[in-house]
């Protein structure tokens, strides 16, 4: 997909964006394709937005599912968030990373759903993960599955605010400052709450007997 992103996509109206001026404003950094896509979107190029959807669709879908625990609602929420993002791109600073901004738009949508208390917050209703065929032995597979299920349950016992922090940190792999931006809270608050959440998870893992075992 990255290769596709680096090349110029087909546009609905290429004359709007295919100008030297536009190209010169997007810079040459690693996120050049994203900046270009944002500028193209602002000009009304829906195909440019397709690149954004395809690049971040998995991330947004996984995050929404973790936060809502309901696949159908997560899919609907991701769609809503992407429509919001399309409409809000003209206010987005193209010099900044797109990833946290998209997650913030998504979290706003998730919060709307959760404020209405219609859905819970426990990730992954199912526990059966697809185990790679290369796993060496059934007992290793079973143990890994057990550990993952224990992690899922431990995450489900976190307060929603704390769980959101953990998802953004470990699943979306955002930095502390990016999480603060996404949730609109101070970095210090992010750190203290994350510290507390990790402590709770550590205790939970220890009681489950899955912490400190030898890795195989």
């Amino acid at each position: 997909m990255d290769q596709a992103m680096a090349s110029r996509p087909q546009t609905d109206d290429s004359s709007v964006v295919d100008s030297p001026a536009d190209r010169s404003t997007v810079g040459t950094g690693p996120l050049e394709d994203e900046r270009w896509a944002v500028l193209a979107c602002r000009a009304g190029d829906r195909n440019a937005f397709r690149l954004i959807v395809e690049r971040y669709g998995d991330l947004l879908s996984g995050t929404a599912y973790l936060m809502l625990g309901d696949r159908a609602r997560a899919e609907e929420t991701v769609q809503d968030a992407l429509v919001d993002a399309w409409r809000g791109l003209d206010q987005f600073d193209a010099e900044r990373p797109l990833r946290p901004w998209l997650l913030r738009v998504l979290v706003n949508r998730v919060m709307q759903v959760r404020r209405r208390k219609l859905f819970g917050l426990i990730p992954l209703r199912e526990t059966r993960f697809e185990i790679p065929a290369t796993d060496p032995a059934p007992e290793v597979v079973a143990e890994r599955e057990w550990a993952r299920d224990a992690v899922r349950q431990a995450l489900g016992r976190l307060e929603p605010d704390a769980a959101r922090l953990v998802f953004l940190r470990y699943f979306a792999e955002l930095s502390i400052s990016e999480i603060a931006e996404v949730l609109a809270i101070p970095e210090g608050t992010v750190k203290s709450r994350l510290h507390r959440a990790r402590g709770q998870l550590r205790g939970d893992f220890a009681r489950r007997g899955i912490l400190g075992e030898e890795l195989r």
Partner: protein
Amino acid sequence: MSEQKRRSEDDLLDGYFEAVRQRERAQPDLWERVRERIDPQPSAVGRGLPRRPVLARATAIAALALVVVAALSLSPLLQGDEASVAQAREILDRTHVALLATPDSGVTSAIAQIRIERASYASVEQLSAEPGAQEIETRRIWWGGPTLWRSETDIEYRRDGAPAEAEPGWLLGGVTVSDGDRVWTFSDVSPGVDPVTGETVGPVVHAQPRAGDRQMPIEMPLAVVFGDVSSPLSGGAGLEALLRNVEECFVAELDGTATVAGREAHVILLRPREVGKVETGPIAADSCHAALAHEPSERGGRVAEQTLALWIDSEHYFVLKAEKIVYLSGDAYPGVSLARSEVVGVQFDVEIDPERFTFTPPEGVEVIEVSGS
């Protein structure tokens, strides 16, 4: 990977989320679905966000209300425990209806003060909170509608009953005001130098506009205010999921009435149906099982011994108080944890000074605009 390496919580989280990444992909036709909904010209000024379909929700509410009315009209005269169980079921159904009917509670304004206490008296340091650690939150709320409200919070930390000093970066409290146009959030962060990063931290204000073509409206219906009171009881699942699935996990009984914050409340006791049950399966996302604490037992979880209770306003069917006490006994990790939220004062349909719904950032405190990118 060395065989000597021991598994840390980071290893566990990384392994879990990697598995999630492998299986949770975007729906195959995501782009087609989004494309159908976006216009060729983005961000038209003044265009509102599309409203979500409300028909399905309204139908569900109507159906639920019908069931409740039917249950009330056909309710037989039951005696003893059977009667209290049936009455509890009716009250919980009404509470469910009140929650789903948000924001049409019929209340025009409210002032409330809520006390939230979390404490751990566990005897091992591996538990989530240190033994003797206690957190007391006092929240004062002025509510003039879903987009006009103020919440002031003070948090007190205690250790073994004595006040404990908050470390730099800990949240001491704050003020959140929705003035109709913006939501202001003042976070009173304990000032100092963060021991981990070396950064200087302190109080800060965030301002987020409500209006605009890209901002989502931030609403707080009154039922949500009181729904939050039940958060210690309902765990991660939320009050709605608990009420929807309460029959599955709990035996609910009416334990008479009590007065909470001067209001008459039904007292509902919730007993887990399967205390001591060892289970290895998952806890469904929208199940009331999420409200139950689990202890480890070899390779399984165990529903812990616990007491849970709800105090429900007999007029509006808001949750006025919730309590959950978990006993970890007969185990390698004995201890007690307590979570309790209680409305300590409330008035409905009162006149509120409009000044309450305004906010001026404290002098010298950094204001961060979060409306842009």
